[in-house]
């Protein structure tokens, strides 16, 4: 379990993480979502004791990272920037990390096999592609068979096959009962990977809920209606409480009313319909909308979102 309480980090005048609190539970993939520069990487560095917060604190399984006796056996981390000496082979990179915790060479070979780097294990890491670098980072993360995984943009630079591989790996690790905390700036990627979402914008918490709930809350459902008698239909729908916007000649977009109800109203007034289609806004758009609000108003946007979606 990961716990962040009132984490605050400033770099000079710029506030990177602003009074951020959340809990990441074991047994599921938790997505850490926010646009670039929202403070995701900084938050992860604070969790891992690489950066020192100005306020608040973070614990992993109840202890600050610095107090873990053998941290690699508890936490595996993959950081966004490559944390590998370019002149060292993949094998020696993992080996020198393993030796700090008394982890044997057998396990080093095991994790290198696991991420599919056996053939290049003796090659210098400097020549690796971004995707191979991510795999090497994951090998280092899995080294101590940790119960907590903190992965910063792990699918960055992976090809489609690699993305599926990484996604499957994360889900499997979570299914084994581990805590998997993974950051991304891509909403759609998180929608298919994460069960739970922690969304931040400009260092502040925007949402902390299940992915399902997040999608439900943040994507507005509308109904697209085409009719030769659109003007009359618009009046009828408006009288019944729907919000109607003209969407070109003979075309309406209706919010706040389900498609069957629109059809019933049209039938009752004998208005001909040419089309009646329920539509959901794109998740990516909703996410951008959400985080943009947090940037504009500098406060959690879920409150501001309510008026628009109800």
């Amino acid at each position, binding site marked *: 379990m990961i716990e962040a309480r009132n984490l605050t980090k400033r770099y000079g005048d710029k506030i990177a993480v602003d009074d951020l609190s959340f809990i990441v539970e*074991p047994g599921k993939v938790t997505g850490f979502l926010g646009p670039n520069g929202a403070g995701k990487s900084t938050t992860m*560095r604070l969790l*891992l*004791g*690489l*950066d*020192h917060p100005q306020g608040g604190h973070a614990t992993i*399984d*109840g*202890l600050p*990272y*610095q107090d*873990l*006796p*053998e*941290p*690699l*056996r*508890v*936490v595996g*981390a993959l*950081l966004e*920037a*490559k*944390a*590998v*000496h*370019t*002149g*060292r*082979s993949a094998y*020696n*990179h993992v*080996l*020198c*990390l393993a*030796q*700090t*915790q*008394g982890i044997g060479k057998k*396990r080093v070979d*095991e994790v290198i096999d*696991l991420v599919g780097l056996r053939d290049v294990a003796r090659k210098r890491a400097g020549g690796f592609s971004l995707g191979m670098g991510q795999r090497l980072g994951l090998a*280092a993360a*899995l080294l*101590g*068979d*940790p*119960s*907590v995984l903190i992965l910063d943009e792990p699918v960055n630079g992976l090809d489609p096959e690699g993305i599926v591989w990484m996604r499957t790996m994360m889900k499997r*690790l979570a299914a*084994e*009962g*581990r805590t998997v905390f993974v950051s991304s700036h891509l909403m759609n990627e998180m929608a298919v990977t994460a069960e739970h979402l922690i969304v931040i914008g400009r260092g502040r918490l925007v949402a902390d809920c299940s992915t399902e709930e997040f999608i439900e809350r943040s994507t507005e459902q509308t109904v697209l209606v085409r009719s030769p008698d659109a003007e009359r239909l618009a009046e009828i729908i408006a009288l019944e409480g729907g919000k109607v916007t003209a969407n070109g000649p003979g075309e309406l977009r209706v919010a706040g009313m389900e498609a069957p109800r629109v059809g019933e109203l049209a039938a009752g007034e004998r208005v001909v319909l040419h089309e009646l289609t329920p539509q959901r806004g794109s998740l990516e758009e909703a996410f951008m909308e959400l985080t943009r609000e947090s940037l504009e108003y500098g406060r959690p946007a879920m409150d501001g979102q309510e008026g628009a979606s109800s």
Partner: protein
Amino acid sequence: MTTGTATPAAPAAAAMPTRRPRFDRVMVSEWTKIRSVRSTVWSLILLVVISFGFTALFVGLTVAQWDQTQPQDRAQIMADPTSMILGSGFFFSQLTVCVLGVMVIASEYSTGMIRASLLAVPRRLPMFAAKGVVFGLLVLVVGVVVSFGSFFIGAPILHDKAPVSLGDPGVFRAVVGGGLYLAMLGLFALAIGGIVRHTAAGITGVIGFVLVLSPLAQLLPGSFGDHVHAYLPSEAGHLIAQARQGPNDLLTPWQGYGVFTLWTALLLLVAAVLLKRRDA
């Protein structure tokens, strides 16, 4: 395709609260780090080649020029041939130790490796201490070998003009001292590399201390200049590679080495405090 044997649901920290990070393990890790990059091997090969080459070259030139040499210079060489022999190689070859010392730590910052290192040793100081011990011992061993090698190359060449043997007073200590000097210089460079965290800037800084500051200090007037010069790190430090205290030396060999050790200890302390405090 299994990720391991331990049950992930039982975190190691809770199960074994008393286990401390073991320093010997961190040392083994640092040894793997040092031996597994090419720059180490190349720097140490260069150290040997440059030391031996320049020893043969400069001692040979000195012998060839012996009759044209100023009498007081000749007297100086004859008073302490060991210092002359060791100095001729080390003057340049010590730069490889400076470069390596800076790179051992600064390259971790330039490549991002430092983050992986600190995730493994989050208390940070054991990692830095282990790096210092392992690197210091490595340079000490290679340095002593290079020092003896240089002596046995230079002494026969110089034999006709200024005979010297290992059994002469202070000579053995001076030859071992050559290795001691290089080891301390390596730690000095390591400290500066840890403070500036940038390879090029670190190397410039160390070379500034070793090569540039000393002639500058000599420009300072009178006894004040002499004292500043004598207490500069590498000026004081290299006295340990002399068989005896020269007539113009303010410090004895061991005093000089003590001064160098203090400089190094101070810079290592600064580097350690910064490592602990700064964001990685």
